[in-house]
């Protein structure tokens, strides 16, 4: 190996460790004794007898379990992320199909209204959104948790781009076979944009799973508490923090989206990089 290639590999390995090592430490710390952690004694090796903390955290038992069972938070986060991703995909694919494949009155107005909201994050309009959802009586409900996060333009724009690239011959052939627009959507447009859908699913699932501010405000009922809100409450400000519980919960919050990204990596990277061009 030449020195420059060695340097390249060295830098990449440093980069890999920059992410792996801290997360490994979170894992190791989760298995260690809470009082030892508070004294600043972290061992880089996990403690085998400390693995029980995952059971305690999941079931909400043991010392420092004020925030309740984490399995419930995982369930809420999972349902929320799925509902946001699924809802956005369905709403967006229909809208994009209409805008790309039809000419109807106010089509451009619809497109620009959707487009203008691009990346106007829920954080910016947090107070008025809260008032609105409160007026609907949807605070502390699953619908209130999900609906304000379902509206977004990114997926619509991505689908529209894919649809614009479908060859005209395909549409003409389908028409000659007597296929209507809905049939074409089901048999042609959807299957042909499968990569797009897979990539968007990853992006939107991670987006939904990682939400913090809106679930914090929209929900006071602990039965609807997401895992992100749970972690921040466990860290707390006053009194004793059970760092092993915090770290175990952080690991549990990290694993599902990482798995989704790793399993669907190929489509995800392709869709993300292509979508923005």
């Amino acid at each position: 190996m030449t020195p420059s290639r060695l340097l390249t590999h060295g830098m990449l390995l440093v980069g890999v460790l920059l992410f792996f090592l801290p997360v490994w430490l979170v894992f190791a710390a989760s298995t260690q004794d809470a009082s030892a952690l508070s004294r600043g004694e972290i061992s880089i090796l996990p403690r085998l007898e400390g693995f029980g903390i995952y059971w305690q955290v999941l079931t909400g038992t043991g010392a420092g379990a004020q925030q309740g069972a984490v399995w419930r938070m995982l369930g809420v986060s999972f349902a929320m992320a799925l509902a946001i991703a699924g809802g956005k995909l369905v709403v967006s694919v229909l809208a994009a199909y209409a805008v790309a494949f039809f000419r109807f009155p106010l089509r451009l107005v619809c497109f620009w209204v959707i487009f203008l909201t691009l990346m106007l994050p829920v954080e910016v309009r947090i107070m008025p959104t809260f008032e609105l959802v409160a007026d609907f009586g949807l605070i502390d409900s699953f619908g209130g948790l999900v609906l304000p996060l379902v509206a977004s333009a990114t997926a619509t724009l991505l689908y529209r781009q894919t649809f614009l690239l479908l060859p005209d011959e395909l549409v003409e052939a389908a028409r000659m076979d007597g296929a209507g627009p809905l049939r074409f959507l089901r048999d042609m447009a959807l299957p042909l944009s499968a990569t797009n859908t897979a990539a968007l699913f990853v992006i939107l699932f991670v987006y939904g799973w990682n939400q913090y501010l809106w679930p914090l405000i929209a929900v006071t009922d602990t039965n609807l508490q997401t895992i992100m809100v749970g972690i921040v409450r466990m860290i707390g400000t006053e009194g004793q923090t059970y760092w092993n519980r915090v770290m175990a919960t952080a690991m549990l919050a990290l694993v599902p989206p990482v798995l989704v990204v790793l399993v669907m990596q190929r489509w995800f990277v392709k869709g993300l990089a292509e979508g923005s061009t």
Partner: protein
Amino acid sequence: MSERRTVFAGSALPVLLVAPQVLLTAVFFLWPAARAVQASLERGDAFGLSVRFVGLANFADLFADPLYIAAIWRTLFFCGAVSLISMGTALLLALCADAVVRGRVFYRTALIWPYAVAPVVSAAVWLLMLHPQVGWLTPALERLGIAWNYRLDDAQAMLLVILASAWKQVSYNFIFFLAALQAIPTSLVEAARMDGAGPVRRFLTILFPLLAPTTGFLLSVNIAYSAFETFGTIEALTRGGPGQATETLMMKVYRDGVVNLDLGASSAQSVVLMAGTMGLVALQVLMMRRRRDVA
């Protein structure tokens, strides 16, 4: 905007198809945005019994408040630092990952998974690294003679939230930089190599200009990320403290609106943020246009 040549006939079906999206947008984007604008022009009395129109008074108060002006500068500094660190690191790693042959898939996977790290999880990670009592790196810092306690020291608190926010974002930038690098024809780089251009020269004269559109696009994404999505990170690490040392504009909207229930001031801040984001989106659209022209 580009259009399809072949389309289907009819207008009832497409209106039906586009309706859910437009309805959601109208209810959850346009209406709250309009409400925010309205509330920013009103002020309630001390008892919350009546509101009256006050014109731009809330905005005048806002921009006359030295705390708000300080928060604007603080947010700009924070966004700049986070974008610079995460994009710089990502570009360096992408250049390396693009150059290697052996271990390519490993490096790529090992640098892509952090995309899934949540802002709150990133905060937990960095607490474990740098908490004054618990932190893994804290003893080493103390041995170096640094009195590390971000709960007391403004600059340290800012450094901590910048690190935790930038760390989480490297992966996103890495994916885009790597994709952009891989789209550059190898023949171009090879030709420069044969002309005797060294790696630094090749980067500055060939790669960097070709990466400029991606860089511009990522810059706007990173600014939006640091301005809004880092709320969870900062809330979990410092809650905006000590004092106001890490209070970004987003934290301030939350604190004034949700915690202190000062709706007029909070709405005026929301409107300012919306205007800022709109500007950023416009910039991003411009960048996407340019990027498409080049690619």
